[in-house]
Every structure is written in structure tokens, then in C-alpha cells.
């Protein structure tokens, strides 16, 4: 059990006990603290089986480490965020707390009512200075069938609004301020990135209460069959693809610097 709680392998511990029988425990404790400090951890991580590694961070790692070039990485579906990473040496990913997800009450509910999402950012160390934060939303192409496919124009468009929730929500009442908005066409599948830096900086730097973000998706043509089907913000949106929710659910990504060393400048492949 102790080996799972420590960053020092058992073999190393035994060696230390042999070399410094009197003071090995103290030395090992100090060395453990040095290792944890080096990695910026409080304790040894013990990932649960349910831990999910977002593909975005894997792709970011692969681009950053020079493992793939943007042009050759066909599966990498985004541009390397040079601007965000130029001042950051740490990128953190957060999924929202689903148990705190608040659906609007039945009385006020419509598919276009903003949904509130709470991201617990308390694991960001105090000494980490955030520069930017983005909310990434997955949107899935709606394949037109029949006569509707003839229409081109506003009928294809969805507006996505991202808000900061300013006060603790009450039933049917959400006090918000708009952070970012975008008009998207529902004929493509892609990730959409929204700048939520102002809200995240308020929660972290200014230590103001975090009441979450609200996401509103408006289908401009109000085609009933398309309502709530384009942007993936809810687990139950696509009944036939529950399994991919872990990878397609909203993702909050923070870019920060802990004051140690250089930013995440990209390496080119050797």
C-alpha cells in the first residue's frame, strides 16, 4: 500500500534503508517532498478507473512534443493554440460536475433555455497564473433528409451563446453575462472553442464565487427535428451514442504558468 502512496519505488526505499539506517525515513520523506514539489503535486496521484483523458489534450501533447506535425496529423482536428500556449507552461482540462448539472424546471423548460454547467477549478494551485481559458463544445453535423436539404441559408444556422452565471441560480431565473457567441452552420462536425477567460480569471485570480457557465443553443430556423441535436452539451442528447459522451462532452481548458521555466513552445519533429 505504501508503494501506491509514494513516488519512490520500494526498491529505492530499501536501498536508502541500507545506506542510511538511522536517518533514512527522514531522508526519504524529504526526497518524496522534493519529487512532489518538482511535479507540482500535493500527493501521489492515484487515478481512478473512471478517469478520462480528453483527446484534445492528447493531441495538444502530440503537437507540442513534435510527435506529429499539424499537417500530417490528420486526426488532429484543431490548430495548435500558439497564442494561449505562448504564455503558459501548464494546460489543465476539466469536465463539468454532472451531479450539479441543473436542468431548468419543467415549468420554464424549453430546448433553448440555457443549461448551467459547473466546473470545479479548485485543483488549480494558487501560484499558477492563468492567462486564458477556453470552453470547447462538440457539434455534430445534422444530415439533411428529404426536401429540407434544398434549403440553404439561415435554416442551417445555430447560434451558440456562452454566459457566466453571476448569481446563485433560482428556479426559472438565471442572472448571466455573455462571454462569447458564435453563429455556426450545422452541416459540419467540429469542436468549437469559446473564450471564457474573463469568468475563469474572476474565479481564480479575484477569488469571486464560481456559479458556473450557461450554454444556450438557438436554432435560427427552429426546425423541430433539429432542435437540440447539433451541439453536444447534454448526455441524453444522442440516445444511440451514450458511450462517446466521455470524449464529446463540454471541456474547459485552462492555460497557466506556475512561474517555473519556459512556456509550451512547440518542438519540431526531428
Amino acid at each position: 500500500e505504501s508503494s501506491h502512496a509514494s513516488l519512490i519505488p520500494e526498491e529505492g526505499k530499501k536501498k536508502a534503508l541500507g545506506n542510511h539506517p538511522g536517518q533514512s525515513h527522514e531522508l526519504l520523506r524529504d526526497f518524496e517532498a522534493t519529487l512532489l514539489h518538482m511535479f507540482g503535486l500535493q500527493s501521489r496521484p492515484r487515478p481512478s478507473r473512471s478517469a478520462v483523458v480528453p483527446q484534445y489534450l492528447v493531441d495538444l501533447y502530440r503537437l507540442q512534443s513534435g510527435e506529429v506535425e499539424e499537417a500530417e496529423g490528420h486526426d488532429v482536428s484543431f490548430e495548435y493554440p500558439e497564442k494561449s500556449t505562448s504564455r503558459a507552461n501548464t494546460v489543465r482540462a476539466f469536465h463539468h460536475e454532472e451531479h450539479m448539472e441543473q436542468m431548468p424546471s419543467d415549468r420554464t423548460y424549453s430546448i433553448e433555455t440555457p443549461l448551467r454547467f459547473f466546473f470545479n477549478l479548485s485543483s488549480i494551485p494558487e501560484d499558477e497564473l492563468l492567462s486564458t481559458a477556453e470552453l470547447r463544445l462538440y457539434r455534430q453535423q445534422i444530415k439533411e433528409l428529404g426536401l429540407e436539404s434544398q434549403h440553404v441559408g439561415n435554416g442551417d444556422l445555430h447560434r451558440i451563446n456562452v454566459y457566466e452565471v453571476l448569481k446563485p441560480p433560482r428556479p426559472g431565473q438565471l442572472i448571466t453575462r455573455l462571454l462569447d457567441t458564435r453563429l455556426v452552420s450545422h452541416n459540419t462536425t467540429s469542436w468549437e472553442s469559446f473564450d471564457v477567460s474573463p469568468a475563469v480569471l474572476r474565479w481564480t485570480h479575484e477569488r469571486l464565487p464560481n456559479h458556473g457557465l450557461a450554454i444556450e443553443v438557438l436554432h435560427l430556423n427552429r426546425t423541430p427535428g433539429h432542435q437540440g441535436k447539433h451541439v453536444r452539451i447534454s448526455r441524453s442528447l444522442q440516445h444511440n451514442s451514450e458511450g462517446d459522451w466521455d470524449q464529446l462532452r463540454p471541456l474547459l481548458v485552462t492555460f497557466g504558468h506556475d512561474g517555473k521555466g519556459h512556456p509550451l513552445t512547440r518542438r519540431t519533429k526531428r
Partner: protein
Amino acid sequence: SPKQRGRKRNRNCRRHALYVDFSDVGWNDWIVAPPGYQAYYCHGDCPFPLADHLNSTNHAIVQTLVNSLNSNIPKACCVPTELSAISMLYLDETDRVVLKNYQEMVVEGCGCR
């Protein structure tokens, strides 16, 4: 074929390969990528007179000179003089995924200091 004799192996301070496999140190459960990395290490003699390429400090040059006169004073040490960073993708204590750039993880050059 005859053994090569008379050719003295170069034992001077230089960089050697050292691949750190995260599964060997038991960190593979929380480090997602890379699985390991080439860290290198520095090893070798810092003999008198120190060669230019050993990237020595003035202090190391003087210490080596004194060592040549008095062996009670040790030679200069072969240590990393240039290091570089690597990126690591890992799960932290709260199961959240972090991509972080860690400084001074890879030896780029060794010297006598």
C-alpha cells in the same frame, strides 16, 4: 580478429544514454505520455589539463590544476551543463488531466565544474 590493444578508452567526462522508463519507477499509472524519455547522464574524468570541450568554469580549471599538485583536493566533477525540458501529460491527484512543461529534465551537454 586480434583484440584492439593500446587504444585507451576515452573515460573523459561525456554524456551517456539513460532511458527513464516510467513503468520501471512505477509512475505509469498516472503519467499518460510519454511512456518514458531519454534523460542521459554525465559521467567521466575531468583530468588535468582540462580540454576546451569540457566546458569548464574558471574554478574547475584552477581546482584541476591544484589536484595535479595535491591529490587530497579532488578533481572537478563531471556534471550537466545544459539541460532541456520535456512535456508530460498526466492525471493529477483529483483525476484531472494536466499537460505541463518540465524544465531541466534532459541533459543536453556535460562539462567539468
